[in-house]
């Protein structure tokens, strides 16, 4: 039996992915099959990949076209390239939107990290009683639909005269990302070796001292990954940005609202705007892709 199934089997089995696993023995005579299977596999995988990536590629390509070449049928792939659309975007004042977004996401992320690191410390290194309950309370807050909180938030912010103010978004995004950040950071801090902390912790040592001089250096990769996830979520947030801002404090996604209707549509400029505003998150996401899965699964998956 063993002799007959091997060829088919070698073809289908997923390749070993962990380093340190000895290479599996190749059976004589199936090498070419493996090779052909490999090519077939690569073809299928790359076809799927390119299909999924096509809209992004199309968006980027069209953003470098002139309007006359953008809205054509059949699509023009090889039209002349230009930076004209990006220039137009800056002429039409995309800059304040970018600044507002950068402000809202960076400041809120900074606040999140400053509050979430001590919280994660109190949930992992020196855990409070019933710390798992706290964790699940935090998680459950992420599950409630934000739309149900919009009206009261809107009314309170209106009463406080804080509508159309970036700081309102900063506070809101800080609270919005806090549970995710705490979950993520807890999973990173739980990995910090106990001995390191105990050795460093002089009796009665100040908490801030421990956090800054012991926890921060060790947990830095985790803190960075958490910060990146928070920036992504607040940069892309639309519902609250749309309803809590008007003209001065509007963020990047709100800039795009003007492109929704069909009338007087400029496809190339739309693509330029979509590309430009997505670019920071694309860069961050690609840079942090190995940490992305851990953040998205709230630290449940390493």
């Amino acid at each position, binding site marked *: 039996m063993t002799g007959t199934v091997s060829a088919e089997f070698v073809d289908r089995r997923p390749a070993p992915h962990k380093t340190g696993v000895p290479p599996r023995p190749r059976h004589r005579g199936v090498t070419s099959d493996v090779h052909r299977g490999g090519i077939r596999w690569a073809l299928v995988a790359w076809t799927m990949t390119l299909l999924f990536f096509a809209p992004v590629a199309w968006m980027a390509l069209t953003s470098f076209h002139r309007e006359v070449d953008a809205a054509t049928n*059949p699509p023009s792939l090889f039209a002349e390239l230009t930076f004209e659309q990006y220039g137009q975007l800056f002429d039409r004042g995309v800059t304040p939107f970018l600044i507002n977004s950068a402000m809202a996401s960076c400041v809120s992320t900074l606040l999140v990290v400053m509050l979430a690191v001590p919280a994660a410390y109190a949930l992992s290194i020196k855990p409070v009683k019933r710390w798992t309950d706290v964790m699940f309370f935090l998680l459950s807050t992420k599950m409630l639909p934000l739309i149900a909180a919009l009206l009261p938030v809107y009314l309170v912010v209106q009463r406080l005269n804080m509508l159309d103010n970036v700081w309102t978004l900063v506070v809101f995004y800080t609270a919005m990302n806090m549970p995710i950040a705490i979950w993520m950071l807890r999973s990173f801090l739980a990995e910090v070796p106990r001995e390191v902390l105990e050795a460093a912790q002089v009796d009665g040592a100040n908490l801030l001292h421990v956090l800054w001089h012991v926890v921060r250096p060790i947990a830095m990769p985790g803190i960075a990954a958490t910060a990146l996830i928070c920036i992504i979520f607040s940069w892309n947030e639309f519902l609250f940005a749309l309803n809590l801002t008007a003209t001065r404090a509007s963020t990047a996604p709100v800039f795009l609202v003007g492109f929704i209707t069909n009338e007087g549509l400029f496809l190339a400029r739309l693509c330029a705007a979509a590309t430009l505003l997505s670019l920071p998150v694309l860069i961050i996401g690609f840079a942090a892709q190995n940490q992305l899965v851990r953040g998205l699964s709230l630290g449940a998956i390493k």
Partner: protein
Amino acid sequence: MVTMAESAAEVDARSRMTKGGRRQRWLRRAPLLPALVLVIVVTQLPFLTTLVISSFQWNVLSPGQRSFSGLTNYVTVFTDERLRSAAVNTVTLTASVVILSLLLGLLLAVLLDRKFVGRGLARTLLIAPFLVMPMAAALLWKHAIYNPEYGLINGTLNAVWQLFGADRGPVISWVDSFPMPALVASLVWQWTPFMMLILLAGLQSQSNDVLEAARVDGASGVATFRFLTLPHLRRYLELAALLGAIYVVQAFDHVFTITQGGPGAATTNLPYEIYLTMFREYEYGEAAAAGVVAVVGTIIVSIFALRVVSSLFHEEVTR
């Protein structure tokens, strides 16, 4: 006598200990409190306020008429045709997006789990749809892809038709003819990478020894996948589905941009309907009641979600 003296000392010591203990407990809690208080004040108190508002007859357009109306708004919510269809649309949209992106994500994860030329680059490219700003993605699909005159789909069809000598390809208005599928497709495109990442992590955590043993025992690839890999992946599938559902239930950007809930109310989901009630009709009481109903619905789903996450979590803690 001796025992009494002892026990008195003991009681004394214990009371001193609990006092110190209480201080200790608060010292331990202190780092947690700022974060917790912020979360509760900013994201949880509003829900309670929503509960209060939902018992008012309150339309901003008729000022001075705010009055307590008990459960009237809930009666409206449960009898209103629009809200009922919004609830149905939410379930349809969420279920189709989660199931389809999970299946596609699984396929991609299985493909990427094997070595092939440029695997790292392929993975990077595949993450891109998830990272594109949802508003930008929605606009991209609405105008650059679905547009009947110059959208990518009809454009490609036209090119293929012309290649085979036809005069002109079919002109299909995708959003008007298939509003719900159009919405689902754009959301599936954004969420498939999310599913893929989680499932790929699941595949890569599978012990190689087990697969090797199956191979040595002569199991076929299909059988190995069906009886070893899928059971192993089950919890990852659950986690991906539930996290995905939490986000897709709240989908607003795509509905707001691509269909505006139309035609009619064919693609209006609960978030969009509540938004309309709030900021177009100014029926605050009714919007709040609909919000409460949405929250209750979500809590029911979340109980299952929490169970899944807690099984993963406790495993990690006890390890």
